[in-house]
């Protein structure tokens, strides 16, 4: 037993083993993703930026109610349409994205089929120099992404 310990101690086998591991990895395939050129494609369920379908939205404000940190602001008023029926019209649908924690509870709360507000847009590049401007989404930005600054267009994912 003592001899074994002495043998272990003097041959530094533990250290050589460690060197072997790092030496082996020297030649292994590298995992780095070269970001701007290569991009990782988010999964289908990836919770990214918001998107709103104003047509589908029934202005029930459930998403605003369910939001744990109250960052969705909705104002609407009634209007008569051509048929003379009273319909709700959105005045304001804002998402204060800089406080959002992307929990997806708003999407879950949405009663329309398909959902009127959803996060599975596979969009995540929202870095900006002015957070109040860029990370505060109003109706225009929520529905028309191409014109919003700093946001790239995305594949639209309609979710049931």
């Amino acid at each position, binding site marked *: 037993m003592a001899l074994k310990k002495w043998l272990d101690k003097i041959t530094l086998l533990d250290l050589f083993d*460690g060197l072997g*591991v*790092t030496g082996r990895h020297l030649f292994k395939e590298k*995992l780095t993703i070269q970001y701007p050129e290569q991009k990782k494609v988010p*999964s289908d*369920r990836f919770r990214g930026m918001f998107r709103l379908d104003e047509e589908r939205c029934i202005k029930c404000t459930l998403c605003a109610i369910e*939001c*744990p940190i109250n960052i969705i602001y909705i104002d609407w008023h009634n209007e008569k349409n051509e048929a003379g029926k009273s319909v709700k019209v959105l005045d304001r649908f804002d998402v204060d994205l800089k406080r959002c924690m992307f929990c997806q509870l708003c999407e879950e709360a949405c009663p329309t089929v398909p959902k009127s507000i959803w996060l*599975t847009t596979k969009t995540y590049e929202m870095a900006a120099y002015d957070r109040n401007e860029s990370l505060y989404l109003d109706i225009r930005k929520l529905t028309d992404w191409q014109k919003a600054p700093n946001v790239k267009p995305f594949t639209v994912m309609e979710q049931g």
Partner: protein
Amino acid sequence: MSDEKISQAERDEAAHFASRAAAAGVARPLAGKGDTPASSSAEPPTLFDVQEMELNFGPQHPSTHGVLRIVLKVDGEKILQAIPDVGYLHRGTEKLFETETYPMGIPHTDRMDYVAAATNNHAFCLAVEKLLDVEVPRRAQLIRVILDELQRLSSHLVWLGTSGIDLGAVTPFWYAFREREQILDFFEEYCGARLTLNCMRIGGLPFDLTTGWIERLFEFVDDLPARIDDYEQLLTDNRIWKKRTVGIGVLTAAECIEWGLTGPIIRASGVEWDLRRAQPYECYDELDFVVPVRQNGDTYDRYVVRVQEMRQSVRIIRQCLERIEAGDIRGKVPRVIKPPAEEIYASVESPKGELGFYCVSNGTNRPYRMHCRPPSFINLQALPKLAKGHLISDLVALIGTIDIVLGEVDR
């Protein structure tokens, strides 16, 4: 230096800090038995006088794993006293629960122990389910266990990497994070998030598994043990690693129980206490796994216990994947959750230890009080005792071995 002298100085310092802490509203860690001045590691008196120095370790120190501040009283590099000062990341999560309905609380739990969000979600949901007396469907139970164990793996991988870096071994960090990224990919595919998962709901789960998830996870867990061998080859037998960890920060079983320490810490001290075995929740009682136990209670044993737990997690995941069957993923839960007025405590074995929620309901849709038992916070109590008499280098190892997450300590 004499023992009386140190103890007097310590008492002064403790009193000073306590008054200052009280003035600042800082919670002072509990003083336990280990705080008695004449500890076994005290050096015999020497010719030289003690030259004490106060050293602020953190909150912006690279190895405090977040924003922990430790006020050190050192003689040269020897630590005479270490007082953790917490609260730099306090966000009032417990108070926040009271203002929101039950389902709205789940995303907040993600942000407590942010390297193990799934177990946090699980504990919270378990508490509310216990209040509601809801049965979780079997498929949901199995998926929950898989998510829990994946989370345990990823949390232990983060711990392995960071505590390796603390002791100067840089490379295990990258290997560990390579595997962790793969685990996060599984999470992303399942629930759409990588870190703050929000992946459980009261009564079950938000989503069903995607197609191919199970097969890919099988491949991953088949691959993982070989990867763990790599980490072990770098660290387990390494003489430097052993020198830095064996005999550092010894806790006996009795001390662990006295301080309420849980998780790998108590298991490394020879107590087989694992909630998955002691109070089985979900379907843990039908799974075959070993609770790794070691006897010495030092940093090395805690390391070994955690590594073995990772291997056991692989086993558990494999069993769950084999047992998984079609079925519901959500139990019968009313749309508006209004539990009866009751008080309840439910806990899970998080990667750090016993994570519990004590929930007081007053019959409305919001909890009257939601208290969390955070394992990191309670395990951190042992730090002053552990650090005493060791060197600054060991303090780093000790912070690593407790495996704290400041999001959970401060909440």
